[in-house]
């Protein structure tokens, strides 16, 4: 293997249980986003656009779709002769099967993957976030600051700081303390779960952590506090721009709606920072004569015969005559029948919504509805009584 300056390790084994039925058969990084993408496309595209061509993707939970989606990485130009993308599932050793019990243990189990490239730096990423970031700038910063570890941070509103892992820093951005979801935050710089380690430090501390029976083998809970305790040089890298954890149905919906803003911070149309994905190769969308489409993002293969207002539609979606889809996200190949009304909902892939169905939030709730087969069955009597 040729030596690499920096190897990326992408943690993609998350279950994303707060995404409810969306992640029943799907790892969170494979959840569809933005009319065409899956969440992991953003991190993989960031790697390619930042000039990082060696990426280990750690998978564990429901990996079928994710693995076949990543394939040999050609969609992101990561099908390389030397390096490229490698999917790293947990594996069995002669004595036992070693599941990834935490983020640190996942990397620890794959130290030999990193070793073969003998890198100077290791970039640790999570496949759960929507953002565009140039990792090579962060690496320059890491080198310039002469850091052992650099952690990317983003300013969050003070009122929300207690929901995040908060970095307490001095004026030189050196990290003094890390607090996971502090009740009384002293700072508003939240960790984005993006770390650059000097390879020697990472190896040493992961080995140390693996020997500690008390450890939960998590970067945030165990490894970072240990490094601070040992007075290693940890530096915060301030990131400015769009960054969103789409861990809940509501935040996934919000992030999709963000794309519809006129001055959207996350510009998908920027040719200099393309977000790559596996292209579905479907014909252009067809907007019928009586259709109305406004303030929406619509992907190829869609057929629109009704009204689509302020919504995101993935490939192959069909909206029937007389139907209204408003403030919603409709995932690939969903078929919305005729005279359907959908408002503030996420419609998952491949679902069929019968004619006359009405899905809207109850006035008293600020809830986003995740449409499921069970929900549609419950709707049945209402549809019948409406005299369809």
């Amino acid at each position, binding site marked *: 293997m040729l030596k690499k300056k920096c190897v990326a390790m992408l943690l993609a084994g998350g279950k994303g249980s707060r995404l409810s039925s969306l992640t029943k058969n799907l790892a969170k990084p494979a959840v569809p986003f*933005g*009319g*065409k993408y899956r969440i992991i496309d953003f991190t993989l595209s960031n790697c390619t656009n930042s000039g990082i061509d060696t990426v280990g993707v750690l998978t564990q939970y429901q990996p079928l779709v994710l693995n076949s989606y990543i394939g040999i990485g*050609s969609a992101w130009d990561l099908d390389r002769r030397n390096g490229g993308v490698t999917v790293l599932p947990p594996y069995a050793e002669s004595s036992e099967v070693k599941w990834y019990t935490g983020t640190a243990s996942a990397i620890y189990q794959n130290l030999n993957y990193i070793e073969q490239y003998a890198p100077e730096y290791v970039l640790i990423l999570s496949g759960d976030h929507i953002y565009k970031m140039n990792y090579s700038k962060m690496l320059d910063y890491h080198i310039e600051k002469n850091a052992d570890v650099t952690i990317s941070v983003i300013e969050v509103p003070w009122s929300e700081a207690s929901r995040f892992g908060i970095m307490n820093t001095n004026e030189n951005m050196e990290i003094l303390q890390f607090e996971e979801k502090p009740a009384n935050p002293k700072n508003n710089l939240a960790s984005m779960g993006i770390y650059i380690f000097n390879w020697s430090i990472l190896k040493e501390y992961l080995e140390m952590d693996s020997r500690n029976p008390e450890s939960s083998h998590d970067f945030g809970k165990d490894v970072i506090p240990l490094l601070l305790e040992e007075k290693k040089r940890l530096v915060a890298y301030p990131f400015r721009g769009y960054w969103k954890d789409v861990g809940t149905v509501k935040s996934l919906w919000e992030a999709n709606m963000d794309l*519809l803003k*006129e001055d959207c911070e996350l510009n*998908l*149309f920027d040719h200099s920072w*393309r*977000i*790559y*994905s596996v*292209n579905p*190769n*479907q*014909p*252009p*969308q*067809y*907007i*019928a*004569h*009586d*259709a*109305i*489409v*406004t*303030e*929406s*993002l*619509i*992907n*190829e293969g869609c*057929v629109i015969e009704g009204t689509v207002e302020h919504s*995101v*539609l*993935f490939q192959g979606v069909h909206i029937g005559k007389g139907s209204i889809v408003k403030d919603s996200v409709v995932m690939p190949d969903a078929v919305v029948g005729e005279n359907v009304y959908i408002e503030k909902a996420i419609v998952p892939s491949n679902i069929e919504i019968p004619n006359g169905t009405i899905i809207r939030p109850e006035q008293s709730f600020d809830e986003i509805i995740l449409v499921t087969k069970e929900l549609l069955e419950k709707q049945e009597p209402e549809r019948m009584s409406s005299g369809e």
Partner: protein
Amino acid sequence: MNKTMLGVIDATKYIDALEPLTINRCIAAIPFAGRYRLIDFVLSNMVNSGIESVAIFPKYQYRSLMDHLGSGKNWDLNRKRDGLFFFPSPDLNMPYDHIGAFEHFEQHVDYFLRSKQKYALICNSYTVCNIDYQMVLKRHIENECDITEIRHQGKSLEMFILETSLLLDLIINRNETRYMSIVDVVRDHRHQLKICDYEYCGYVAVIDSIDNYFAHSMELLHPMIWKQLFDKLRPIYTKVKDEPPTKYTGEAVVKNSMIANGCMIEGHVENSIIFRAVKVGKGTVIKNSIIMQKSQIGENCELDCVIIDKDVKVENGVTLRGTARQPFVIRKGTVQGALMNL
């Protein structure tokens, strides 16, 4: 029974009536149906019919065609065994412009000599349809034909099936037989070969003039027609572009139109075909038109019955009008200013 076929796409033909769309590209590379090039249809049909070895014979202006096809990956033709072959004509002055000219094939006869496939399918590059060539081959074999010609409503689609060995015979002995192309053989009756017709009943568009390019494009807006052409089980492949989904703003009004990815629609679009990454500005009204890739239409423009080639910039407030019989064609890469067409 050996049912393997070679796919041979003859892209040597130049048709004057398609200018100015062919000024920078060969006919095979003319953009069609919002995101495709004409060759995508015949090539996808071949791949969907199980053909694994495709030879393309281009002659004029094939840079854009080569760029489009690349290694053949998008058609699953980047194979170790067989795959996509590109055989440009070494001589532009050869006078044979019938489809299936043996002179062109002779220049690369090794391909035919080395291939193991029993049958060869020869097609032009500008016939748009969604056809299963295995059905044609089945009939060809059942009826013990020597050459089968595919037709639509009696008109030749310039698609022929014959045994590779017969094709080689015809190529090698062309000076003795005086048959210079496959068309010469099919049209002549002085030989002993059994020539059969296969009538294809699905939708067909033969693109051989600007008028019918425009008319056939507009036909695609009929759901009955695009459903036939874009069969989900027999997809048409093309070069993928990583464009984001198309964005419609609050002012957008779109009716009866086919719109590809990566567009930004802020105006009014009706009965039109919009290719990938096109921008339509505020207050602009586009009707009965075809706007090709990456063209930018400014604000408050009025476009009716126009074909706008790739990379055209139409400045704010421009009016461009053609008629359904004579669409107004704007050449690739030009700028249309407000005062230019008065």
